[in-house]
């Protein structure tokens, strides 16, 4: 396995002080932000386009292309999406806690490239420690004159504000995040007309980038777009952070070159399955992604294209591994419950559909399911995500609703027998749910009584 580390290099080499401004500068930090001031906007945008850097928030859209779409009106804003809440994902938390200056430098570069003078970092409310670290880094950068009026003694002004969210997954969706930053309910806006690049924050052109995306920028500038693109032979350039969790021996965040296989990831990097169990299924890109099974997908390359061709996505890079003792109905229920809870409620297919899916799965698990329930769940799913197509045909403003369908696809395509056995046996027989019904955790939803 190649040991090319970029965004996690500093925290790997200097585990005790990678978050400090002194260590950051001693390891070449802020040199590229200074250099960016000497380049033209076009040069910067072209360099990032040439690097092939893809957005790391989940959509994997070309970062350079996104920048080039920014409408000419000013003021324009930059918003860093640190509302990491996709189940299975914890990579941004590590970048925020362990190397916040790297992100700040990426923000300065992005701002200069897009003529932005006010940037925001939107951190989820459940991340107070990362927020404290980032605020400390921002304070240090202001004190050094790297932020504020005339950054690096140039004529360029840049303000940076750290904002804490209120606990809502949907605010990871860029237009919902913008609404939330304006102090409103975090409901996604309709696109068109509200494309952030044209009508974003305060109705002005806005770039929304993920933490990992901008953290890559200092490295792209320092090594050059061609070298960055040359890290792998794969179509996807550079490195990619993956959050590995579930039944593996070594869960954690790994910065990896694109193009290794799932077998490499789970059995080599992840140290194999816990307690020598068999692999049953895994979710390849966060809770939103359709599931993979070993019989079909273990030797696929981990790239955007290969994953899409197999009907799933790399999303936020979160890999959730499940062993043979995992009840698929229960796992599916837990994923669907998440989307049901986090649905903002604007669009009927999502609000009603996710609630129905959750109810159907729970009754199958608890032993009161009917033989037609799986088909009913598939039918409801079809109402949220027409024809169950991949990528989904949208019935809703944002992709949250169609994401909730992913576990149902897995039950329909790979685990139909297991579902039907739940019905015929009158409940679940897997470990952890003795006697049928699972613990009454899901008797009420997380938001009940408080909203």
């Amino acid at each position, binding site marked *: 396995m190649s040991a090319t580390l970029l965004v996690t290099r500093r925290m790997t080499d200097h585990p005790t002080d990678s978050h400090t401004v002194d260590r950051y500068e001693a390891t070449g930090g802020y040199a590229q932000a200074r250099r960016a001031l000497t380049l033209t906007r076009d040069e910067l945008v072209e360099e990032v386009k040439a690097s092939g850097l893809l957005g790391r928030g989940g959509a994997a859209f070309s970062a350079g292309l996104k920048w080039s779409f920014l409408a000419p009106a000013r003021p324009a804003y930059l918003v860093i999406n640190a509302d990491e809440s996709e189940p299975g994902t914890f990579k941004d938390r590590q970048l925020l806690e362990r190397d916040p200056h790297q992100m700040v430098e990426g923000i300065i570069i992005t701002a200069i490239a897009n003529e932005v003078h006010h940037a925001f970092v939107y951190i989820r409310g459940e991340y107070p420690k990362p927020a404290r670290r980032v605020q400390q880094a921002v304070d240090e950068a202001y004190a050094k004159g790297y932020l504020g009026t005339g950054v690096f003694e140039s004529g360029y002004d840049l303000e940076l504000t750290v904002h804490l969210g209120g606990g809502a997954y949907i605010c990871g969706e860029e237009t919902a995040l913008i609404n939330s930053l304006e102090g409103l309910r975090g409901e996604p806006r309709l696109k068109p007309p509200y494309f952030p690049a044209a009508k974003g924050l305060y109705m002005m052109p806005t770039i929304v980038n993920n933490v990992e995306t901008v953290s890559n920028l200092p490295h792209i500038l320092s090594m050059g777009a061609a070298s960055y693109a040359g890290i792998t032979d794969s179509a996807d350039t550079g490195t990619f952070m993956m959050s590995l*969790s579930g039944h593996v021996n070594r869960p954690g965040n790994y910065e990896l070159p694109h193009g290794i296989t799932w077998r490499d990831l789970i059995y080599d990097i992840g140290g194999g399955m816990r307690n020598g169990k068999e692999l049953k299924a895994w979710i390849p890109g966060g809770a939103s992604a359709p599931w993979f099974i070993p019989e079909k997908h273990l030797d696929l390359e981990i790239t955007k294209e290969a994953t899409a061709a197999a009907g799933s996505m790399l999303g936020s890079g979160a890999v959730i591994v499940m062993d043979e003792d995992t009840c698929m109905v229960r796992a599916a229920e837990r994923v669907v419950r998440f989307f049901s809870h986090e649905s903002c409620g604007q669009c009927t297919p999502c609000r009603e559909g996710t609630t129905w899916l959750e109810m159907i799965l729970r009754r199958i698990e608890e032993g009161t399911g009917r033989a037609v329930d799986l088909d009913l769940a598939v039918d409801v799913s079809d109402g949220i995500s027409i024809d169950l197509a991949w990528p989904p045909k949208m019935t809703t403003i944002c992709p949250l609703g169609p994401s909730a369908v992913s576990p149902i696809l897995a039950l329909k395509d790979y685990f139909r027998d297991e579902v039907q056995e739940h019905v015929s046996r009158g409940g679940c027989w897997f470990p952890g749910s003795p006697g049928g019904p699972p613990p009454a955790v899901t008797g009420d939803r997380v938001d009940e009584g408080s909203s």
Partner: protein
Amino acid sequence: MPLLYMAMAEEGYLTEAGMEEVARWCDITPAQVLSVASFYTMYKRERTGAYLISCCTSISCMLLGGDDVLHAVEDESGVPHGETDDEGLISVEHVECIGACGGAPAVQVNYELIEGVTPAKGRELVTWLKKARPEVVNSDEMQQLFGDRRSFDWAIAEDRGAIGPYPAFQPLGTVGEESDS
């Protein structure tokens, strides 16, 4: 939204008076404030204990026993999910993913994280909170006492922590400094 947290810090949770005050500051109606506050899970509009214990039961934590940790915490504290004890000391809730999947199962006390918690350690945590009643809830201290495997190495110790059931963050003035460590 920062104002809502500050209003919570005043009284321990978001009261009607607090929301009315925020409405005055922002020159909007109290109903508009309520519409925002009710959208987000972290703005608690009911009396919340000094220690808010949030157990993650999302998929990654569930796979490694998060449900059992929740039940142990509920049982030991006598507080079921979504409720607060009579004394106003402990509230228990189960929450969706808190971004600690590599250290599952994860628990937060006043949003300060503990990873690798077992049901037995969950019980010890409740007992400790009742007995020690720390003024400042510190992540590192709790991780050492009640945690095990983490998502990644934290490495750098931090003395600061939460002083109430809302996130500890300097610009909100809600961060506490540990005096005795």
